[in-house]
């Protein structure tokens, strides 16, 4: 349904685009005060506006405003929160689709399979209730912070992002490919994210999220681990997805550890240095690299047990 809306908007684009650019050109010439604030209510308009030069996408504002320095003039803003399709969480037989304006609190309240419990636990620990009421999952991905709490659980759910532009249409990118580095994503200048899409998780899979910080609430993670685990009747692990954040420029899945889990009972998984090769933690004010490495091994064990529990 969302996709058909997208197609129809692509068809009618050319005419509207001109009108829009015209407005912008006038503003630029005037150079008086800030640039416009766009708040489209449908996808077609959103994509048309996304093609504007130097526009800044804003949703919850929880990353945009804190990054603003004294004297910073805001660019043209494209507020995506009023686009009707973007606020939906849709569950079908084949996928689970979270719109680009879905806020963390919407996710917490949504009825989702148990494999999403890790994502929900992360949601409850993101900032505060205030942040959860404003911030979106999509924004967490687009901001591409190494310490983004949303990324590890989305990695364990095999999530892809759906991005679209008026010119290029729609494409899906795995999160692993979407987040390319610190504050760097695969979004093209004229693209916006439209949804996060996940396959239906294996039946019976559970999930968990382990966050390590120096205080309760409102804390940037020193490290975090998310796991999705399924076990057979004997309690032996048959499916494992484990991802770590804040220990590398981009959150990583630990494929070696995932493989090592298969055939083990959750409590007997040993996390070795080899399992953490994907990680490259750094020293910063929140903790040393050595500490992160060591803590992550422990968090992985807990996450596996928690997800299986």
């Amino acid at each position, binding site marked *: 349904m969302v996709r058909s809306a997208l197609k129809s908007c692509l068809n009618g684009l050319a005419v509207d685009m001109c009108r*829009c650019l015209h*407005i912008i050109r006038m*503003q630029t010439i005037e150079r*008086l*005060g*800030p*640039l*416009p*604030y*766009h*708040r*489209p*209510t*449908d996808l077609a*308009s*959103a994509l*048309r506006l996304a093609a504007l030069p130097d526009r800044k996408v*804003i949703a*919850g*504002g*929880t990353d945009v*405003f*804190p990054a*603003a*320095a*004294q*004297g*910073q*003039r*805001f660019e*043209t*803003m494209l*507020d995506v*929160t*009023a686009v009707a399709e973007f606020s939906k969480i849709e569950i079908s037989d084949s996928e689970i689709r979270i719109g680009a304006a879905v806020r963390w*609190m919407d996710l917490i309240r949504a009825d989702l399979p148990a494999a999403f419990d890790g994502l929900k636990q992360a949601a*409850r620990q993101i*900032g*505060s*209730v*205030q*942040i959860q*009421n*404003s911030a979106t999952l999509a924004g967490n991905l687009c901001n591409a912070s190494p310490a983004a709490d949303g990324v590890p659980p989305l990695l364990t759910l095999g999530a892809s992002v759906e991005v679209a532009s008026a010119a290029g249409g729609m494409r899906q990118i795995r999160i692993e490919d979407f987040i390319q580095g610190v504050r760097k994503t695969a979004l093209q200048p004229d693209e916006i994210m439209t949804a996060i899409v996940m396959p239906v998780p294996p039946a019976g899979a559970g999930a968990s999220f382990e966050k*390590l910080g*120096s*205080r*309760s*609430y*409102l804390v*940037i993670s*020193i490290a975090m681990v998310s796991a999705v685990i399924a076990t057979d009747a004997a309690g032996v692990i048959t499916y494992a997805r484990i991802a770590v954040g804040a220990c590398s420029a981009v959150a990583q899945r630990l494929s070696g550890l995932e493989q090592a889990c298969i055939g083990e009972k959750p409590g007997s998984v040993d996390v070795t240095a080899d399992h953490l090769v994907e990680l490259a933690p750094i020293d910063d*004010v*929140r903790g*040393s690299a050595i*500490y992160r490495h*060591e*803590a992550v091994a*422990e*968090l992985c064990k807990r996450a596996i047990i928690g997800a299986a529990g």
Partner: protein
Amino acid sequence: MTEVMPSETRLGFTLNGQEVTTTATTGDRLSETLRERLGARDVKIGCNAGDCGACTVLLDGAPVCACLTPVHQVSGRSVETLAGVYSNDPIAQALAERFQDHGAAQCGICTPGMMVSAVALLRKETAPTEAAVRDALGGVLCRCTGYRKIIDAVMARPAPLTAEGDHVGARIRRVDGLDKVSGAEVFSDDLAATGMLEVLVIRSPHPRAAFQFRDLDNWAATTEGVVAVLTAADVPGRNVFGVIPQFVDQPVFAEKETRFRGEAVAAVVAEPAVIKRLAQSDFPVVWEALPAVTDIRQAQDSGAAILHEGRAQNVMCGGFVTCGDAQEALARAYVTVEGRFNSGFVEHAYIEPEAGYARMVGDRVEIFAGTQAPMMDRDSLEIILGLDGSKIRIVPTGIGGGFGSKLDLSVQPYLALATMKTGQPVRLTYSRTESMQSTTKRHPSDIQLRIGADAEGKICGFDFFGEFDTGAYASWGPTVANRVPVHASGPYQITDYRAESKGIHTNNPPAGAFRGFGVPQSAIAQESLFDRLAEKLGMDPLEFRILNALENNVQTVCGQVFAQGVGIRKCLESLRPAWARERMQAEAFNNAWDTRKRGVGIAAGWYGCGNTSLPNPSTIKAGLKKDGTVVLHQGAADIGQGANTVIAQIFATALGVPTKGIVLIGPDTDVTPDAGKTSASRQTYVSGAAARLSGLALRAQIVQRMNVADDAVLRLDGGSVVARDSGGRHLLDLAALEAGEDGFVFTAEETYDPPTKPLDSNGQGVPYAQFGFAAHLVVVEVDTRLGTVKPQKFVAAHDVGQAINPLLVEGQVQGGIAQGLGMALMEEYIPGRTENLHDYLIPTIGDVPPIETLIIEEPDARGPYGAKGLGEHVLIPTAPAILNAIYAATGARICQVPATPDKVRAAIKALEK
């Protein structure tokens, strides 16, 4: 359809039930719109980044940070602020009552955020669990209360206020609490009118830099909306300020070279819209970064650049106290222990950044800003402005926390210079980062200590050497240097003692006054080593402290002898039941758990109330009007601790009328005499003593005039005083009396100055007229694999002499413990790296466990009704108690705070090897 909004657009929404329309510009935050366009100044801005939650409002009933909400998003929706819910919602009204009953608002700056967040919760859940309350309020930081009273208020736990009477000892609501819970309180940034000229201070981006201005006149003339530029050349008096006369060394604007990151070099005065768009880099100044010294070792190297002429090796000053022969005693001691302890910069992190406004009234400058020391502000401005004090008026506004830093000037000189230069009213509000970069911090410390004990467990030799990073300017550094050697012994009997301190200049932010003035740092060293001594002796740590506790008629390390009032033994003894119980429970817990270990720690502290060996008088004036109104000129700045209430209770008790009904006039320098600065835990004691004398003097006049017995019961009945004594009922018609220029028919003004004597070259003398005492017990749980430490419970014993108001005593204890917890576990200010409340962590509501306060009352003969100071005492034992508890839980000794998870884990790992 697309809703294209031009750069300026009109939008409408419902604000507190009323339809409003406003103009919105791209990038406008809801917080700004509410405060500046719609007059909703009850919405507070603490960080402008979603880190503190003070600006929380309800958007369609859900709490959001107004500072992160684009105003365009509220179009057509409902926004509620504290003032709105207080007016419209019975849930909020009931909560406001409970907030007052519990003392859940101290300074009140976080209260709007706390209350609206709580209202959102209570609309959904009428009887929330504590966990639900924590989750709902976890996004709002409070620096005063320690959160426990807020939890109590939201959960509607019982609040046993005193039913009859409101004099000394009565547990009553604070007298100024209603405005804090209704949103009506006016804080530093709440008075200036929208549209007023604003000031932007231009600051050094480097720890040390040379700089040159380009053509400032041309820049000002050609930059639209700029009204004036201020630099050192615009300071009509002397370009210098400071708080200690011999150490006045800080320029208002640096000249040629800056000495720390964030130091001011210039200020721009301009229209608000221009200030909003003005980046630091727009200002025409060229910086040249210079080699900087940022640690005290480097600063004392012979090759290091000297920050201040005449301060060789960058040593600002030192302090020294000795008695007996420490080395000889250590040589003969049965056991000795030694250690080196370090702490970093700690930021006050009050939720209200510095702000204010100033205006010219005729040839006088008036400054409206939050402050802890209005008269000192005026004295400093006299020098800077080259004006007589009579031409300067300081009007303190409500203040959103201080904790020592707001004793120093911040916005005041810039405001004064800007209004004098332009002739127009001006406004200045620091950003969070600006506040953190430019105002004072707690001194980092590097302490070496050796202590011995004899075979019986009595202390035998104590040798202390502490160096403190006082940063680029002296501020209160000399006070720290003086106080530390006097207090480093802790509240114990030590006959052979030597303590030396040094304050060292670096290119770091100025370190100044912060709750405890260096004593929390020295207590970490001393109380940690006391635990090690007890262990080496095979003694119980609590009994070891009781054995060595200071007593009446025993000399302190300064040779001072108190014949009365020494309450430390009682504090320690009061912890015995909890000590036994909690250690047993921890042991049971530890037997059941593998990677979670609990430990119980204790520590004690003492703190001398008032200035060290210097005069520090307070004057309190009061009067009675014809209509029977009692007016109290309460000049002690109430920064949330409760001076307005405590001083009023003392005064009312002395006068013999109810506290309720007394009209308070605050510390406006034009109308209220100097009650000194709010620091050094001196207001309850010193201003309280002055208030008592003033109350007694006023009473004496009335009693004499009415010719009734000294112990007559007075009652104010409209325009008359009714006195009842053994001779019966007497009436005095006040209307018949002649009123003086203040409108008072009776008036009294009394001064109290604590009796102290100078310290000699060995630190012997009478530094303080009274000490207060404290002992804390804490239970912590350590996750031994991750190194995280979670305090579970505190029991805090405080000898306050006489609790003037037990509710406020508990508030001080809980708030002080939260700050001590932060210092122990998470807080470290690193210039350039933790300059916001995102990276600089202070405890949240999830970090502070239940706190049981044991009020010990060992009266002090000098304190009003026996009362002693309390504010700083609380923070002193907390950190060492936590470190001792970590040891009890894990065997790991942590000698550096904050004990962040990586440090704790490293210490545990070292033991495993």
